[in-house]
């Protein structure tokens, strides 16, 4: 029997307007309630063996009431989180131009290796005789970090970049105390362009934060810096390349000047991707530098974490490094955990972000010394390409080439009625995550763009074309496309004022449900 039933197979002329849908879904974009609004008591997505009858040892501390957690089956949970995931932008989806974040490709090989049971199913307090491979990996990573930075020692345990800053500043403080200058070294110099973690860390450690101004070409004002030096200076905290994306030309003079008064040079390594494999911070006079493994070494950002912030240390600061550390021995590597010499103690339980070490080492092996140098070259090339190709429609904050990130200000938006914020939101409609905005603070309406080496030229050209068109649209007076943006995201602009005035930080059951209980 033939199938005689035909139906239309080309689009008709129906130019229908937007329609309302029953549940608020828009095709593949689903509205999704909270798990608490979908659960049912007694349901679970996990099957467990029966509980054998035993004499309880909980005393009178057995939980009495319910907890209030919702019950869902596995299909419901999977669907819930898949739907949520589809409302996120991600590196795997498109260029992520966030300056200072280094949103490079996150290789999946690294995920596979971190999940090897020999690493993933290894307890941190397992007898040291059973974990030789883990300690070897930590020691190998330490070796790569030391060679890449030209520094003799590294503290692996800090759990994030800011934690690494804390490590470095505490080590510097310990070094001054050991020289009998703990009471007199009270001041830390921090450029005005610094990331907020720098002054926060310095203040937290008890230092007075003394801001150092920048020159008109975006670098630390060396003369102003020298004028601020004195025997009460404990350290300078510098980012290099700096937060404006520029290499500090006077870096050696700065290091020498600070060393000259007995201070130490802390380097914020957030921008290491610009120079890795081509320049060693040890050759620039750095005493301590944290490295963001989740930036330079591709460990995934995971929606906000986990990070990892090992700190390379000079010979002067190495004795004060926090516990535990990995020691190279004849046989291989050993983990030293017990209080040793001048160590300032522990910054965290256990040994650090082992899962991130595996990923970072896999990245390093995959690139090698040659690939790492090529990566930083490409990162700097890509940022300059963007800066050069947009120079005629946008306003670069500083003259001359940049390093791995290009900084623009909002002069090109003057009198258009479009702000940096509006411009950023319009990028969302164009399919891009906005660049870093309003940072660094020293530039008005800052737009900091870091493409990284992971972008093809085609991808860069597309991004440039979009930015060009947006800049032209702003200057042509197409204000509504900006002030109303984003139009095409799962949510329009959100009321952050209301969220801060009347914070609602958790779900609570609606009153009717409570009355029914």
């Amino acid at each position, binding site marked *: 029997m033939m199938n005689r039933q035909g139906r239309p197979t080309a689009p008709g002329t129906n130019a229908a307007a937007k329609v309302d849908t029953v549940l608020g879904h828009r095709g593949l974009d689903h509205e*999704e309630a909270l798990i608490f609004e979908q659960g049912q008591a007694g*349901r*679970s*997505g996990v099957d467990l063996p029966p509980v054998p009858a035993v004499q309880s040892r909980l005393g009178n501390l057995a*939980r009495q009431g319910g907890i209030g*957690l919702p019950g869902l089956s*596995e299909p419901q949970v999977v669907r819930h*989180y898949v739907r949520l995931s589809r409302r*996120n*932008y991600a*590196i795997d989806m498109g260029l992520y131009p966030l300056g200072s974040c280094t949103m490079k490709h996150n*290789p999946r090989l690294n995920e596979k290796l971190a999940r*090897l049971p020999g*690493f993933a*199913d*290894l*307890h*941190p307090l397992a007898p040291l005789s059973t*974990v030789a*491979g883990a300690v070897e990996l930590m020691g190998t990573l330490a070796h790569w970090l030391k060679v890449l930075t030209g520094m003799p020692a590294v503290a692996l345990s800090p*759990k*994030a*970049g800011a934690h690494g800053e804390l490590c470095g500043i505490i080590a510097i403080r310990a070094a001054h105390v050991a020289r009998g200058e703990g009471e007199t070294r009270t001041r830390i110099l921090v450029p005005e362009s610094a990331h*907020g973690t720098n002054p*926060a860390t310095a*203040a*937290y450690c008890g230092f007075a*934060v003394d801001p150092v101004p920048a020159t008109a070409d975006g670098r630390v004002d060396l003369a102003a810096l020298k004028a601020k030096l004195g025997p009460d200076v404990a350290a300078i905290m510098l980012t290099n390349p700096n937060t404006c994306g520029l*290499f500090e030309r006077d870096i*050696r003079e700065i290091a020498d000047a600070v060393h000259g008064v007995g201070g130490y040079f802390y380097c914020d390594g957030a921008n290491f991707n610009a120079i890795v*494999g*081509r*320049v060693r911070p040890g050759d620039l006079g750095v005493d301590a530098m944290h490295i963001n493994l989740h930036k330079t070494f591709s460990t995934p*950002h*995971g*929606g*906000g*974490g*986990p990070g990892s912030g090992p700190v390379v240390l000079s010979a002067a600061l190495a004795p004060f490094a926090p516990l535990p550390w990995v020691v190279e021995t004849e046989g291989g590597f050993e983990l030293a955990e017990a209080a040793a010499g001048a160590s*300032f*103690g522990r*910054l*965290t*339980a256990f*040994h650090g972000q082992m*899962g991130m070490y*595996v990923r970072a080492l896999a990245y390093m092996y995959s690139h090698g*010394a040659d690939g790492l140098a090529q990566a930083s070259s490409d990162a700097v*090339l890509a940022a300059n390409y963007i800066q050069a190709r947009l120079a005629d429609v946008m306003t670069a904050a500083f003259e001359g*080439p940049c390093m791995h990130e290009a900084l623009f200000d909002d002069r090109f938006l003057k009198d258009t009625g479009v702000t940096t914020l509006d411009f950023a939101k319009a990028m969302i409609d164009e399919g891009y*995550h*906005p660049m870093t905005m309003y940072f660094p603070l020293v530039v008005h309406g800052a737009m900091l763009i870091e493409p990284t080496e992971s972008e093809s*030229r085609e*991808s*860069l050209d597309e991004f440039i074309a979009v930015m060009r068109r947006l800049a032209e649209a702003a200057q042509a007076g197409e204000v509504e496309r900006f002030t109303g943006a984003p139009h095409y995201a*799962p949510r329009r*602009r959100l009321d*952050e004022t209301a969220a801060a005035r009347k914070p609602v*930080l*958790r779900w609570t059951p609606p009153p009717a449900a409570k009355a029914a209980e």
Partner: protein
Amino acid sequence: MRYLPLTGDDRAAMLAAIGAASVDDLFADVPVAARLPGPVDLPHHLGEWEVENSIGAMAAKNRHSGIMASFLGAGAYRHHVPASVDHLIQRSEFLTSYTPYQPEIAQGTLQYLFEFQTQVALLTGMEVANASMYDGSTACGEAVEMARRVTGRNRVVLSGNLHPHYAEVVKTLGALHDTAIEQPAPAPAGEGDLAPVIDQATAAVVVQYPDVFGHIRDYSALARAAQAAGALLVVVVTEVVSLGALVPPGAMGADIVVGEGQGLGVGLNYGGPYLGLFATRQKYVRQMPGRLCGETVDAEGRRGFVLTLSTREQHIRREKATSNICTNSGLCSLAFTIHLSLLGEAGLTHLAALNHARAVEAAERLAAIPGVTLATPAFFNEFTLKLDRDAAAVVEALVGKGILAGVPGARLWPGQAALADHLVVAVTETNTPAEIQGFAAALAEVLA
């Protein structure tokens, strides 16, 4: 090079557009002496297969908890994580996304953080929780700092039965601020009352629940004593699954509850990344460190979520921030949220009951062995045995029999002879009755 898309032609064209002769020109600001003439002294790049072999070889040298009978706890616990969790956290949109600073295109992250905050508040019995911290130990350090800010005082009382790594973190931070820290010696048989140690200069009293030896006790009276003196009670929970079976610290009157969430969703990972939990009273919310996700509406009146109360944080307050923290534990908090969503209330209480039952069976078998005394009469899934000899040597002997028997006192308190014969043993749903029997038999053999 597989991760570097630019070709020679691309680079040439880009240089032409920039107007530079070579990439070296773009590095002109680097002092000449600091420009490396060639690649550093490290190996050349490798293909995937070679990287797998090299790193796989290191992994293969570890006698991990999948191939040994594992009874290790002391701050990190082996629980089975359902396959869906790891599958979901590896979705590109979760794995490779950034902090949700542009909320319109980060509602996925923001909604799960809101769910996470709610789950943590419910588990701990507290009013509000943050979007996670690096781990339990740094959360503990931050709790002490918060108590100092709230009370304006600078003295801290730490339980002697607080995990020593956690205590060391508090001491490292305390040294920065000349904080007076009072901590009695560890008491494996159970700690005395800390109330007499609290005075009018005390900012915080920090206790662990269950404590590092496994003891569980009611801190309600201690909470009242702390509050009467104007101090805050900080309760540390290192085994989050215990909250499925025990009275929550919030119900006892805790002011701040911090914990390690690694037990749900995250896995052992040789110590990190882990997941710090932080919960407190609503009235202290502006003093709480870390990220916070809040509910709001968008321009079309639809419910949405945003990071909020950001003025506490470093990127705005800079040197006056509540903390220098920038990241939370992102993907680990997602893993936790998904695992707990799968368990649900029924599953979590069942899981906790199962853990307790296995631990009770194990404790009874092990305590029956000559030379072994149980130091912790009341416990959840972790207890301490006092042996008739050095526990570390016994542990090494049991490694030879394929058993990771527990954490010996010398590992947690190096140099403290009085604790060297103590063994902290954790038992979870991943320990079968056969494994437990095997452990008891092997221990009897070693001690015979």
